[in-house]
């Protein structure tokens, strides 16, 4: 079954084609079901492949399946790229959780998007997204990953600007795509450098044939350059420090989109990429340092912004950025398993939270402002319970998955030998505190307190009572809640026997810091993490359960996300337009002017010479005499000179 890995991405792609050609005819619900079926089918296929892979051991767990020869061998430079898929523990982990989460969210979308005019088109884009994500994850070489990379970028552009009637949605989509494009430059340059240095783009494994195999023999400067360039790409895709504003605006898209793309799958692509080039990354300490610093920095900044947001989806968006920061911290410390574990766990509870928020918004008929919700506990029982599970998980309160995943990351940071790792651990801890605070704030504002939504008079008539979402939306919530709780077991510390993630070792090899932490210090750290989470939650509960307006706690700096948007606009936006206008006028006036200038010059010369033609015979004779004198003069000069 391993050799048919191409079926996994092919199924959703087929779904996309069918919907593209007959989408409109299939119509409202069935298009949704078709979409969900294809994704579910590829989930089953990936389970089967996972099983087959489990059967093998050690290095046998890496199978490359060449589908067809994409770019033939270019003579002399030997550049040759084939459309190949790489099935190994890392990619299978990603495939499993991507197809899993997608199936749930497809199911959820059937409910969420009912009654929308472009219902089939939504699933069309979703299917294409899943196909591209699978290609990204299963890609056997950098170029295939890049194909998936751009594919998901375009799908996120389409899905964000799905309700293109709304100006904000259209420009948000464009903004997301442009940020991704800026990042892709890094990816392209990295690919060129890798090809130039190693002659191939295919990964191969630590010891094997691809460019990762030659990682050791590369000069350190190249290694750092490649890693940093790829990190630039990852930062763009996974919304890290300078490039994360697009994720907040991406909330313009429908909530399932936010859940699937901007929480669970696409944004994790960056982390996957960094993990994939792990062997190379771990050889370049400077790159590791940069990655972890940016990671932890983003985590803290995003968490701080999250505390001041009013829009429920914005809070979750910044929380995602913050959690991604954690993942990059883990990658930076070399704890790739921890990063993957946090990613999977995060996918569960963040997906749950987003879907929860979605059903809240659906219930309150498109109301997203926390300050206008409250006391939904009475009306949306199931949503309340599932969301609270998610909040507890993400806050890192034991025994849920968040505690273990985040704990792992912080432990690795603490274990780092040098001083900066300790600082990063402290910042990470502070971020954990903030996370617990703003998540509890969200829960309290949305579900507890009094019914602030009644006061909102929308268009003259009072709002109807919020109703619980239909089953097709609540089932995924429940499944995700269960997973969020159980997720922690995947990577229990220490010596517990059952540890499926241990099987990732062959991909990443040794090098995680955690091993040389003594068992006791791990327990101490765990207790510290738990305490921090409880304190954060408690403070938030006490502050926000009664009072809903606390300007001191929501300063403008944080609400405007550290004015990052204004800064980029001032540095790139406006000057860019000015440059364009200036270049355009330069083009028409100077270059074009030069051309018409020459034309006018010729005509001027013409009319000037025309005046020589006076019409008088004697002056013509004078003209001839001038010619005569010149020639005779020339001849005399010749005769005399010789």
């Amino acid at each position: 079954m391993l050799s048919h890995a191409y079926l996994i991405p092919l199924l959703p792609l087929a779904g996309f084609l069918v919907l593209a050609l007959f989408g409109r005819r299939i119509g409202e619900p069935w298009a949704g079901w078709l979409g969900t079926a294809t994704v579910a089918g590829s989930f089953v296929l990936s389970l089967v492949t996972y099983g087959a892979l489990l059967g093998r051991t050690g290095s046998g767990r890496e199978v490359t399946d060449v589908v067809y020869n994409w770019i033939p061998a270019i003579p002399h430079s030997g550049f040759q790229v084939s459309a190949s898929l790489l099935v190994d523990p890392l990619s299978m982990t990603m495939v499993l959780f991507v197809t899993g989460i997608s199936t749930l969210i497809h199911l959820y979308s059937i409910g969420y998007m009912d009654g929308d005019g472009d219902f089939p088109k939504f699933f069309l884009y979703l299917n294409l997204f899943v196909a591209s994500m699978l290609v990204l994850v299963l890609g056997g070489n950098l170029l295939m990953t890049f194909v998936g990379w751009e594919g998901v970028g375009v799908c996120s552009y389409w899905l964000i600007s799905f309700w293109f009637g709304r100006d904000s949605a259209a420009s948000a989509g464009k903004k997301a795509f442009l940020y991704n494009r800026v990042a892709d430059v890094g990816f392209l340059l990295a690919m060129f450098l890798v090809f130039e240095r190693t002659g191939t783009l295919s990964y191969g494994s630590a010891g094997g044939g691809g460019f990762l195999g030659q990682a050791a023999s590369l000069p350190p400067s190249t290694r750092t350059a490649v890693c940093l360039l790829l990190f630039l790409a990852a930062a763009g895709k996974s919304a890290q420090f300078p490039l994360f504003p697009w994720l907040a605006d991406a909330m313009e898209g429908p909530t399932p989109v936010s859940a699937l793309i901007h929480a669970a799958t696409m944004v994790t692509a960056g982390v996957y990429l960094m993990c994939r080039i792990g062997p190379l990354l771990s050889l370049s300490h400077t790159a590791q340092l940069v990655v972890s610093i940016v990671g932890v920095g983003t985590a803290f900044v995003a968490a701080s912004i999250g505390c001041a947001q009013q829009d429920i989806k914005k809070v979750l968006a910044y929380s995602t950025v913050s959690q991604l920061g954690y993942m990059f911290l883990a990658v930076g410390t070399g704890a790739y398993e921890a990063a993957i574990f946090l990613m999977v766990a995060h996918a569960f509870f963040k997906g749950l939270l987003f879907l929860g928020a979605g059903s809240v918004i659906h219930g309150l008929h498109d109301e997203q402002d926390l300050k206008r919700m409250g006391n939904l506990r009475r009306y949306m029982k199931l949503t309340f319970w599932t969301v609270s599970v998610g909040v507890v998980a993400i806050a890192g309160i034991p025994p849920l998955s968040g505690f273990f995943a985040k704990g792992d990351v912080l432990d690795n940071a603490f274990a780092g030998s040098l001083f900066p790792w300790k600082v990063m651990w402290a910042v990470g801890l502070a971020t954990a505190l903030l996370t617990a605070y703003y998540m509890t704030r969200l829960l309290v504002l949305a579900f507890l307190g009094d019914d602030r939504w009644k006061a909102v008079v929308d268009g003259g008539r009072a709002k109807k009572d919020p109703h619980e979402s239909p089953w097709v939306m609540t089932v995924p919530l429940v499944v995700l809640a269960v997973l969020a709780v159980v997720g922690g077991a995947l990577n229990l510390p220490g010596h517990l026997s059952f540890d499926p993630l241990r099987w990732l070792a062959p991909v990443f090899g040794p090098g995680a810091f955690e091993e040389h932490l003594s068992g006791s210090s791990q327990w101490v750290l765990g207790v510290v993490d738990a305490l921090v989470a409880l304190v954060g939650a408690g403070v938030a509960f006490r502050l926000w359960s009664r009072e809903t307006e606390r300007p001191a706690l929501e300063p403008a700096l944080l609400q405007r996300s550290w004015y990052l948007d204004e800064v980029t606009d001032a540095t790139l936006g406006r000057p860019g337009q000015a440059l364009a206008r200036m270049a355009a006028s330069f083009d028409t006036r100077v270059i074009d002017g030069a051309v018409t200038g020459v034309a006018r010059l010729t005509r001027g010369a013409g009319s000037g010479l025309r005046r020589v033609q006076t019409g008088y015979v004697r002056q013509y004779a004078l003209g001839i005499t001038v010619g005569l004198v010149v020639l005779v003069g020339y001849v005399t000069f010749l005769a005399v000179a010789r």
Partner: protein
Amino acid sequence: MVPGALFHFSWLKIPANRIDFLTFVFSAAIVLVGAVNVVRQRNPVLAALSLVMTLFGVAVLFVEQQANFLAAVQIIVYAGAIVVLFLFVIMFLGVDREESISEEPLRGQRFWAYLLMALTFVGLLLAGLGSRFGSGVPSVAGTLNDNPAHPRSATPDVVVLGKSVFTTYLFAFEITSALLVIAVVGAVVLARRPGAGPLAEEDDDEVEVEVETAEPEEVST
């Protein structure tokens, strides 16, 4: 540029043979005075007469160069026929009244005319006579004087000229007939009164027609 080689006007010395020199000076004076008069004379008739004077001077020089026949032809054809024709036309058109020489409508025409022609003269002089060669080149069209020792007894120039016109230059001679045909036909055509037929409306290029669309400005968008 060796100045020495520049001017070898060795021929400037006064020739020994006194009479030849006198005749040359006399005829040169006639020629030059006549020429200047043609230009300066206000009355065209007097100008024509001074032209005759020049022609006479040139004829004398011809004789001195043993071109007796040419001298005669010069007087008869040139002075006799062509200048008479001039006089006839002057009288016929009645343009024989005084014509003011002093005012010159075309600005700078006079100044440039004198300057340029002076330059040409000097140029020709330097270029032309500066060169020393021009030695006895074997005559192609036949020698003029087959007995240099006794110029008088040599075959008369008429015979030699006659022979050359009808052998070497026979073709040229025949072609002049075409020239004369044109002259006659031309005279007839030009003398014809403009008959009936469509009078050409005034040519429209005097009226400055503004061709705006096809105007060259169109290049400059």
